[in-house]
Structures are given as structure tokens and as C-alpha cells.
């Protein structure tokens, strides 16, 4: 600091007479000449912080945070210099991004599987090949104001209409924090917060339907996440939400707290590794529900556009204690999958799963091994063909298959990795 002052003082000391300014106007003094746009003087961060504190004190406001909110949005939309009657697109320009994603298919599940290990959508009535309609997801996404954005996803399914997610995200918080409020999927594991159309396989892993719920776990609440100041992506997320009870016949919601840590780092130019750990505690009124889980994701990008090889796995466990209609103690499940997409259009996958049986005393768990082939007709249309071999409690075998199609229209926002 002193060194800078010293240098500045020396630089400012009179040496040679300054040459006359080349910008001085011959009319200077006789009339006001156009003045150059004043440039803000450079400020050190300390000076800037002091100035902000002084202004806050003078305005009677609380001291500003170290990271000022983006006052700045200085909108610079592309506009025509002269437009008669204003823009005809004025209302359209303020519309949120609207999208719809439909999922349907043709599925089969063997009767023995339906009997000993009941399936949820996209599988239909056991023993029959039936068309199934899974869901139409309507998305509305936009920036709310300079401080937040909002994402709304409404599901139209066979059981009616439901708000799957509707939340605001505040992007301008200090200390590398971010917050969400509204209704959203709980931050537990890798697949649970994702929308089904982003999954590689056509259905949710069995372990997640058994231990978290047929539609995963989530609900109204708020969460706060923090991005750690390290050279890789290290995020901690905490949420408090109202979730569906563990007892399928239960009504209402239960308060639950979630804690998740996720780490992503690159290994070389082409490989990204992600690991995560999650935990949750829900008050089941009466009783308690504990959830713990770990997940891993490794993606190797190949040379061609959109080509990759990805490994993904999750293991999770649930403990119910004193919950009505629930087995006391720990239950666990897992899945591991590998997907190869040799080019932008098609790919293959294989998945192995273990999930706790839905029937008490059935012993052991349900095992399933599935194969997948998918073909994207374009970025907005996908076909998936998936077949699974089931190893059920009692040592019997079952079979299931699905041909699923998916389409997307409108402007659907990009999803996180």
C-alpha cells in the first residue's frame, strides 16, 4: 500500500512541463465543450468495502455482504433504433420458456414378477402386453427478477395433475451460497433429484422405488447449498422438506431434513468423476425414518460429438423405527449401471440391481439385470428398448420388457450434469 502511494507520489511529482492536452477545445471557456464520459476511479477492494459500509450507515441499512448482489444487470437487449408502435413481440419477450415432455410405451411384466415383486410405471398389468402412458411433464422456466429464477414442472399422469416441482432459486447470495424455496425433489442420491427424461434407463431403479417411494422423495420446503472454495466442485446441500410418509397407507406429510455432499473432479481432459453422500431423517409421527446413501458417477467422453462411456451406481439404506405398517430395522438396496453411447444417436446399457423385497419374511431381496438399447431420432425424440431378467424371492425367475418413447417440444432448460 505504502509502496503504491510512494510510486504514485513520485509519478505525480513535477518533472517536465506537461504538453498541452490534445483534447482541449479551441472554444474552451467560451462555451461548454462536450465532456468525456467520466470513468470511475479504480478502487481497491478495501476502499470499495469501506465505501459500501459508509453508504449503508448513512442510509440506515444493514452492512452489505462481502459479495454484492448483482446490481448490475444492465440489460442491453437488441433493439431497433426506430420502431413504429413498439415491438409487436413485447408480451412474447416476457414469456417464460415453455416445454412439454411426453413419455409412453408398450410394456410387459411376467405374472410371477407382478405377484412377488410388484412394479410401478412404466410397467402395467402383469402378464399382458399393454400400452402405457407415463406422464406429460409441462415445464415453465424463467428469470423472476434480478435476484432469482423460477422453475415449475407440472405432471399430467394417469392419476391426475400434480405439481412435481415449483421452486425459486436465489442466485445472488453471499459466501458462495445458493437457496431454493418451493416444492422440489429432495437432494438425496443421484437419480432422485433428476427428471425421468434425463435417465439413461426407462425406469427408476428398484431400490429407489422401494426405499424412497415410487415417485422418489421430495416435497415442499427450502434448501441451502454452499460451494466450497476449492479447485474442484465441492458442494454441500441442506434441505428441510415435507415428504410423503414411509407408510404407503399413511396420509399427510412428514417433516424431514436432508444433507448431501457432492464432489466432482476431472481426471485428465476427458474423464469426470463424481462422488456423493446423502443422509436424511424424517419424523414419521410416530416413529423415525433414517436414510443414508452413497453414489458414484464416472463419465469418459469419447472423440465424436455426444459420445461417452458412463458408469453410475448408488447404494442406500433405510431404517424404520416404530413406524406404523413398516418393518423395523435396516433395509438396503443398490444398483450399478454402465452405458456406452458411441455416437450422438444411439447407445447401449446394462444395469444390475438389488432391492429389498416388499413382502415381509420373503427373505433376501429382489435382483434384476437389465439390458438397454436407445436410439435418439433427434435431440427431441428418443426410443428406448429395455429388457430385464428378475431373480425373485424363493429363487424363481421373472421377466419384464418395455419399449418406451419420449418426445419433447418447446424450450426446455438444460439440466445439471
Amino acid at each position, binding site marked *: 500500500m505504502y509502496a503504491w502511494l510512494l510510486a504514485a507520489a513520485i509519478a505525480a511529482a513535477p518533472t517536465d512541463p506537461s504538453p498541452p492536452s490534445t483534447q482541449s477545445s479551441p472554444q474552451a471557456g467560451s462555451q461548454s465543450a462536450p465532456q468525456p464520459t467520466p470513468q470511475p476511479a479504480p478502487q481497491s477492494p478495501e476502499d470499495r468495502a469501506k465505501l459500501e459500509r459508509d453508504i449503508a450507515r448513512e442510509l440506515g441499512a444493514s452492512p452489505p455482504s462481502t459479495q454484492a448482489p448483482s446490481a448490475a444487470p444492465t440489460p442491453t437487449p437488441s433493439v431497433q433504433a426506430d420502431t413504429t408502435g413498439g415491438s409487436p413481440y413485447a408480451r412474447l419477450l416476457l414469456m417464460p420458456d415453455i416445454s412439454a415432455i411426453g413419455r409412453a410405451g408398450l410394456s410387459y411384466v411376467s405374472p410371477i414378477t407382478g405377484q412377488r415383486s410388484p412394479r410401478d410405471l412404466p410397467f402395467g398389468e402383469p402378464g399382458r402386453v399393454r400400452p402405457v402412458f407415463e406422464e406429460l411433464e409441462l415445464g415453465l422456466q424463467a428469470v423472476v427478477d434480478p435476484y432469482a429464477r423460477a422453475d415449475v414442472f407440472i405432471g399430467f399422469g394417469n392419476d391426475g395433475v400434480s405439481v412435481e416441482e415449483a421452486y425459486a432459486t436465489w442466485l445472488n447470495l453471499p459466501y458462495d451460497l445458493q437457496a431454493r424455496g418451493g416444492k422440489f425433489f429432495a437432494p438425496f442420491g443421484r437419480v432422485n433429484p433428476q427428471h425421468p427424461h434425463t435417465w439413461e434407463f426407462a425406469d427408476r431403479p428398484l431400490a429407489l422405488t422401494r426405499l424412497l417411494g415410487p415417485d422418489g422423495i421430495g416435497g415442499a420446503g427450502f434448501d441451502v447449498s454452499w460451494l466450497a472454495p476449492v479447485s474442484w466442485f465441492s458442494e454441500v446441500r441442506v434441505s428441510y422438506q415435507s415428504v410423503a410418509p414411509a407408510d404407503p397407507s399413511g396420509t399427510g406429510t412428514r417433516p424431514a431434513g436432508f444433507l448431501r455432499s457432492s464432489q466432482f473432479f476431472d481426471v485428465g481432459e476427458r474423464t469426470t468423476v463424481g462422488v456423493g453422500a446423502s443422509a436424511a431423517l424424517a419424523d414419521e409421527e410416530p416413529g423415525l425414518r433414517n436414510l443414508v446413501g452413497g453414489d458414484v458417477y464416472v463419465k469418459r467422453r469419447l472423440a465424436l460429438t455426444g459420445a461417452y462411456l458412463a458408469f453410475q451406481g448408488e447404494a442406500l439404506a433405510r431404517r424404520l423405527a416404530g413406524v406404523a405398517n413398516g418393518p423395523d430395522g435396516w433395509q438396503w438396496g443398490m444398483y450399478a449401471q454402465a452405458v456406452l453411447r458411441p455416437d450422438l444417436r444411439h447407445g447401449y446399457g446394462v444395469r444390475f440391481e438389488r432391492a429389498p423385497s416388499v413382502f415381509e419374511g420373503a427373505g433376501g431381496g429382489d435382483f434384476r439385470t437389465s439390458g438397454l438399447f436407445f436410439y435418439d431420432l433427434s435431440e*427431441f425424440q428418443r426410443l428406448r428398448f429395455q429388457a430385464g431378467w428378475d431373480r425373485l424371492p424363493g429363487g424363481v425367475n421373472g421377466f419384464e420388457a418395455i419399449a418406451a418413447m419420449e418426445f419433447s417440444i418447446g424450450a426446455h432448460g438444460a439440466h445439471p450434469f
Partner: protein
Amino acid sequence: MIRTLVMLCALALAAPAAALEVVTTTEGLASITRDLGGDAVHVEALSRGSQDPHFVDANPVLAVKLRRADLLVDVGLELEVGWLPPLVNQSRNPSIQPNAKGRLTVANAIHVMEAPTGPVDRSMGDLHPGGNPHFLSDPRRVDAIAVAISARLAQLDPKNAAKYEARLADFRRRLADARTRWEAKLAAVRGKPVITHHRTLTYFLDWTGLKRAGELEPKPGTPPPPSHVADLVGVVRAEGVRAILVESYYDLRPAETLAAHSGAKVVVIPGDVGADPAAKDWFSYEDLLVSRVAQVIGS
């Protein structure tokens, strides 16, 4: 003498001024920004020149690069719409949100081609509704982009404004010289027909006077079916097309099939800076692109 020594000591003791942290979405933009900023900026690109900029992973590690960025320079026109928004959201950096002071979308600085004038829908393929975003191979557009980047650097870092202005003048002078050289080299290709894979060369063709005879993609983003390749065989023969220009990140099989049936030659071109070892910066990238095109079509 004493005053000089004191001043040198003072400067040596002074902490070095922190460089402006700039993140760009592509290596081409990074190269131009480095050229314009010199040692007053530290520049990183989110994607590699060997990657198709439409399909970069929204890898959270990239969000870490954005966290402390003073300036994010993106192409715009929805080129990065599939991956940049979640990264910006995850970055916790309010300064680089859309329309913020630390965000520069360079498409706003140029005259955009192929902007649809009527209703559009996806039956027309995966088109960019705002216009074609592949303009970094056109030196005329790069000149305008350089002016915009330099102005934003000066706005964010006014103490170095004179330095940015001087570097911009030097950049534009070198660009004008190079352009004269490139245009002389390309004089022989004017009016010659070419096939491209995607509409990545619209601006380059406009600048060079090359004629687009067709594209391997029947519509943007759709893979070429055999019937379309067969149609192009007829086009190549009828129009005397000598080259099929394909960026290295695309599947070469359709181009090679077309070449095998038509006699045209497949020319693999760099998609961006860094896509080829010889394309070390934007000038050498453009040199390479011009050389490969001139060599095959102009000979």
C-alpha cells in the same frame, strides 16, 4: 537517478495488480481475448476446440471456473444453451448472469446471418431461432467481436483501458494484414461449390465467396439418411464439387461415403482453436482453415 531507483523499488514492493479473470465458452473466444488483454487478463475456456460446442457436458467442474470470473464471454444465439445455463446457475457468481455487467454475448456485436424471418418449428431441424452462431471463422465478424471484447475489458478494468485500446489497434492491424493475405490465397476458390456437414461455415462461405452446394445433414442436427447422401452424389457430380468440408468432431463416415461415390475429397477442418496442433491461436486456426480449403479447392 535516485528518484528512478526509489520508484523501481516502490514498484518492486508493490503487490502485482490482479489480472482480470475472464472465462470464455470456446477456445476461439479465449484466444481473441488473450490477444486483446495481454498480461492484464487471465483467460480460460470452458470447452475444447476438439469438442462440438453444441454438446459440451455441463460438468460441474466448469462451474468452479466461473465462480470467480469477472467476465464471461459467450457466443450466444443458443449455441451453448444445452450446457452453459446450469453452469452459470451453479457458479454462485451474480456478475456473469445474463445481462449483467460481467457477461458479454458476442453475437450482439455482429450482423447475424440466417436469422429466421417467419415462424419456425423443429420440423426444420435443430435450428438456432436467433440466427447462425458459427461466425468465428469470418475475420470480418472477428474484427467486430474484438472491438466489443476490448470495450468490455476497458469497462471492467478502466485503469488498463489505454493498454486494451493499444492492443486492439494492433490486433486489428494484424487482422487486416492477414485478411489481405487470406483473400489473395482464396481468390481462386470464389464461386466454387462445396458440401459441408452442418451449417458451421455459413459466414466463412459468405466471406470467401464459396458456394454451398449442399449439407450432409438434411436439416440441422439430423443425421444424413442414405437417400440424402445419394441425392448429394448427384449434386456433387452435377456441380463439380471438389471438397466436402467436415469438422473433426463429426462422424466422418457419411462424408467418406459421399466421397467414395462421387469423387469429391473429404477435407477435415479444425472446428476451433485447439482442434488441430497447428491451430494454436485464432490467427493460426484461420490460417489452417484457409490453407486447407485453398489447397483442395483452389488448386
